[in-house]
């Protein structure tokens, strides 16, 4: 099959200094300079991946395996220590829902803010405004502050704005598990549409049945490295087997 790639990432390495308890405060930085010790934790180590157009690509792995870091690198919000990323197409990222939204403001203003944040011009947001609101089914609530929305309403509005970008490439991080059944069906439909138009979806999830069903290929990240990459069913099965083993050993 000779399909064209949508994302080509080569040899991505990202290391962090441990941040949660040990922020790089001035004092510690000076101490580190003096002792020339720089503790780092590898989040990704030499990860390469090629995602094709029209493909749904899953990323699975335990917490802290580097899944979200990889998505951030593909979204180009995190510059890797080394390695290259090439993305061919218009990317919409849904690593979190409602990015750029201000809960104090009305849904109307947040559509504008979210659209501008994602890279649209104001004119484009204005043109798409009706479509966005209709799709989110929020005509009644659009002039109310977003802080009064239910989580489902919030998710619908955020998803509609992200889809209004008309992306070729969608990067998702476990966000569509929110909302009611009809919203999930709707977002699913939007994603299938995107794939049918030779779009690309990269998808981080812990919901393994969804991954198996929805994705063509899956990457299993384990401790910053690619453990396995290939057919969705096979990789998910191998991952499940490895997760179950230590539990049996405990008993």
């Amino acid at each position, binding site marked *: 099959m000779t399909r064209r790639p949508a994302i080509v990432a080569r040899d991505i390495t990202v290391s962090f200094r441990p941040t949660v308890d040990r922020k790089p405060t*001035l004092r510690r*930085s000076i101490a580190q300079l003096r002792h020339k010790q720089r503790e780092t934790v590898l989040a990704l180590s030499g990860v390469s991946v090629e995602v094709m157009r029209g493909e749904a690509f899953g990323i699975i792995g335990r917490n802290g395996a580097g899944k979200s870091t990889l998505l951030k690198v593909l979204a180009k*919000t*995190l510059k890797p220590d080394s390695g290259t990323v090439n993305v061919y197409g218009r990317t919409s990222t849904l690593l979190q829902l409602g990015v*750029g939204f201000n809960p104090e403001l009305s849904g109307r*203003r947040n559509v*504008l803010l979210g659209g*501008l944040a994602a890279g649209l*011009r104001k004119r484009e947001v204005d043109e798409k405004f009706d479509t966005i609101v209709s799709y989110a089914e929020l005509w009644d609530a659009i002039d109310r502050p977003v802080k009064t929305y239910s989580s489902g309403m919030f998710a619908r509005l955020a998803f509609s704005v992200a889809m209004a970008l008309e992306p070729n490439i969608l990067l998702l991080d476990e966000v569509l598990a929110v909302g009611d059944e009809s919203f999930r069906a709707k977002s699913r439909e939007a994603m299938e549409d995107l794939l049918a138009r030779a779009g690309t979806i990269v998808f981080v999830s812990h919901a393994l049945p969804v991954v198996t069903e929805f994705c063509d290929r899956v990457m299993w990240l384990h401790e910053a490295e690619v453990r396995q990459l290939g057919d969705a069913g096979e990789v998910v099965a191998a991952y499940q087997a490895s997760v179950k083993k230590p539990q049996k050993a405990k008993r």
Partner: protein
Amino acid sequence: MTTSTVPLRRAISGVRAYVRHLWNRREFAFHLALGNVKARNASTTLGLIWWVINPLLLGGIYALVFGVILDIQRGEENYIAYLLAGMFAFYYTRSVMVGAVNSIIQNARLLANLPFPRLVLPGSALIESAVGFVASLGIYYLIVGPIDGVWPGSTVWWLLPAFLLHTLFSFGLGALVARLAVPFRDLNNLVPYVLRLWLYVSPVIWPVTFLENARPGIQQVLEWNPLFPILAVYRHALMGQTLTGGDVVVASTWSVLLFLFGVGLFVRNEGRMTRYI
């Protein structure tokens, strides 16, 4: 083509590309600023009018404390005009700095999720502050005119270069502090104290002539403070005080250098910013 021109050309085209990207995001910067102001005033009755009330109250309080109660004027005839010119200008710098730092820390989600030139965020803080400052200049004469009899004169066009230089200066400083405060959060706690000290060592509350009685050496040290020449340009514009060519040269030099340094440092390696938030 010699080899030394190649990196230079690459640098120039890099800067041009960055500026183009930044310009493409101008609507985002503007609406982010507007959204912030609206959100902050969403639950107040007066809403956006606070943009004008804030400097009015600020000016009123300082005029009362330092002009009436402490009677600090010492040889400055139009003390209220002098005080408010300095105070409004100082608060502009202050608000750009604080806004720039907060814009990065409060918009962590935006930074983690979306790629865009990061200078958009302090830029948005600058827009917010600049509108507030222009509003305060608008009401300057409303306070100062009736009290001190100071009205716009022939030097008022100097406001434009003053505002331009001062904006470069403040934005450079804001970008610098924002860049440093992301990995070193300690700075965030320090900034208010530094600003307070800076206010007191600048010729805002006390007249420049006040220093003539100070201990030897103090004046020479304090005059390194870039706000001396910058405030001199404002006071020339607003109240017709004398301005020397030296002041203009020093103010311009500080402004341009600080802008280039601060913004340059911010933009360089801005891809690493996401790691710290």
